[in-house]
């Protein structure tokens, strides 16, 4: 994010530079301190502690034993742990890519006209983001039940053959959870992207038109590059949400059928708090954190590259 870039700009001072008299400086530490203390105590220290636990075999109750990288080895070799990461990646498709594509579509369409009542649409489309995922899960579990509204609707429409126990179907359970994620995330993507599109100077569209570009060219030459920042933000937000999804899985499928919807956070929870494998849980947490850092870094990187 550009946050990083501007930090460097602010920090790149040479010797011989003299600070403005009376500009607050040391006092900066004072402002940061309270927040930093709370943050360090409840985020940084526990994270370090997690790292420590991840090198131990520990049931959470009795004393732990150092096992080195064993837990990590399990994360990468135990198919039942490894697959949770695969599932998370599939969810990225639904939480991040699908909303992004839909959001871009809308942004492209709406970028060139003033929409009456856009604020109402925005508010409505953002609504799914607002409701607790737990509630969302309950609602959708009901909708997706074997004779829930969805299947009833399908049968009423004469598509009874497509009706299925969505959440109990090995092929469909994960996409179903994913589509609920799409439902939740779409509003976020669309609000940010449409807003971003409306910040693109209209003269750029005019210039492209005068230069002879059609609507498709216009999208690739003006809209898409103009939305670079928003796309990065949307992708980071939705991708991390996908990678760490827990609530929906907990409420909707409990990881089933089989382990087909088990995700890292869910596995972490059962390992740490139910089956007495706190070390494994911690290792999953660390790997998950690293995965998210890599993804976020990659997204911002690609975002930056596409601009240069």
């Amino acid at each position: 994010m550009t946050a990083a870039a501007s930090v460097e700009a602010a920090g790149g001072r040479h010797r011989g530079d003299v600070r403005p008299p009376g500009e607050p400086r040391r006092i900066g530490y004072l402002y940061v301190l309270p927040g930093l203390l709370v943050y360090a105590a409840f985020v940084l220290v526990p994270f370090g502690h997690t790292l420590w636990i991840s090198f131990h075999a520990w049931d959470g109750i009795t004393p732990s034993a150092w096992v080195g990288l064993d837990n990590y080895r399990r994360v990468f070799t135990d198919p039942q742990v490894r697959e949770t990461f695969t599932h998370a990646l599939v969810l990225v498709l639904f939480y991040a890519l699908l909303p992004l594509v839909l959001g871009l579509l809308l942004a492209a369409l709406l970028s060139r006209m003033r929409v009456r009542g856009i604020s109402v649409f925005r508010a409505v489309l953002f609504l799914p983001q607002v409701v607790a995922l737990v509630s969302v899960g309950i609602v959708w579990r009901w909708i997706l039940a074997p004779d829930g509204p969805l299947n009833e609707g399908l049968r009423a429409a004469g598509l009874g053959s497509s009706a299925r126990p969505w959440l109990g179907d090995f092929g469909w359970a994960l996409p179903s959870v994913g589509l609920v994620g799409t439902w939740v995330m779409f509003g976020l993507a669309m609000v940010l992207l449409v807003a971003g599109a409306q910040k693109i100077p209209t003269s750029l569209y005019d210039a492209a038109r005068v230069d002879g570009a059609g609507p498709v060219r216009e999208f690739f030459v003006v809209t898409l590059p103009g939305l670079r920042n928003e796309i990065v933000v949307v992708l980071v937000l939705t991708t991390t949400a996908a990678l760490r999804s827990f609530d929906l899985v907990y409420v909707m499928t409990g990881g089933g059928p089989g382990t087909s919807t088990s995700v890292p956070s869910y596995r972490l929870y059962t390992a740490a708090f139910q089956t007495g494998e706190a070390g494994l849980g911690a290792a999953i947490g660390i790997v998950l954190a690293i995965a998210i850092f890599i993804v976020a870094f990659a997204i911002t990187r690609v975002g930056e590259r596409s601009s240069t």
Partner: protein
Amino acid sequence: MSGTLERAVNYGLLVLFSVLALAPIAGILLTAFHGPDAVVSGFAIPDPFTLDSFRQAWKEGAFGSSLWTSAMITSTTVALSTVLSLLTGYAFGTMRFRGSSFLFYVFLFGLLMPFEATIIPLYFDFRRIGLTDTVWGVILPSTALSIAFGTFWMRAFFLSAPRSLIEAARIDGASSLGVLVRVLLPYGRPAILTMVVLVFMWTWNDFLLSLVMLSGQNILTAPLSLVFFQTQRQTHVQLLAAASIIVAFPVLLVYVFLQRHFIRGMVSGSLKG
């Protein structure tokens, strides 16, 4: 020009997406207004409209106390994290001091790190010092996490605030706290408001943290009690629907009242990435 057709298509799509967004919510509303003993299927219109399901769900799920717990946790977290991240964001956004960029990266780390990665030691450490099963067991970690976000958010805002505004205030004789309180706070109301709504939403809706921290179930947050209610009353769709609405209601209320400012804040400068 094909203006009218284009407009029609655009509005059509917007309406379609809106319907998709609203349908499940509408379905659950319709369901909830059925009486607790009615036989409900799909999107049937309740006949008669009744609040009985809400009443029964409220009683059975003991949502009164869990809403209260959630309200306490959420308001404390919002208040604490807002004040603290205003201070940190102000420092990072307007002051230059040794190590400030490093410190900022430290905060940035918490923004991306999944808090699932810290929940294991948090739980065991809190249990040792007796913080589990108290509201503080939830408040402290969520405050810390919100500070990571708030610092990022407010810093971006303070950076985008016109530098000359700060300088004008300094020349006018304001101290550093004076600049923050008298000039930047009022100026930054939309950004701050947006942060408040986001933190409110996230804290209120949190599930995993309270599931772990409040495992004793002497106190429950609203989403937690909703899930317990669900596993007990799985078959009773109306009650479940009513309970879901009860739990979502406060956030919805906050959202509806603030959405104008909130969405404006979301889409304006602060999220410049």
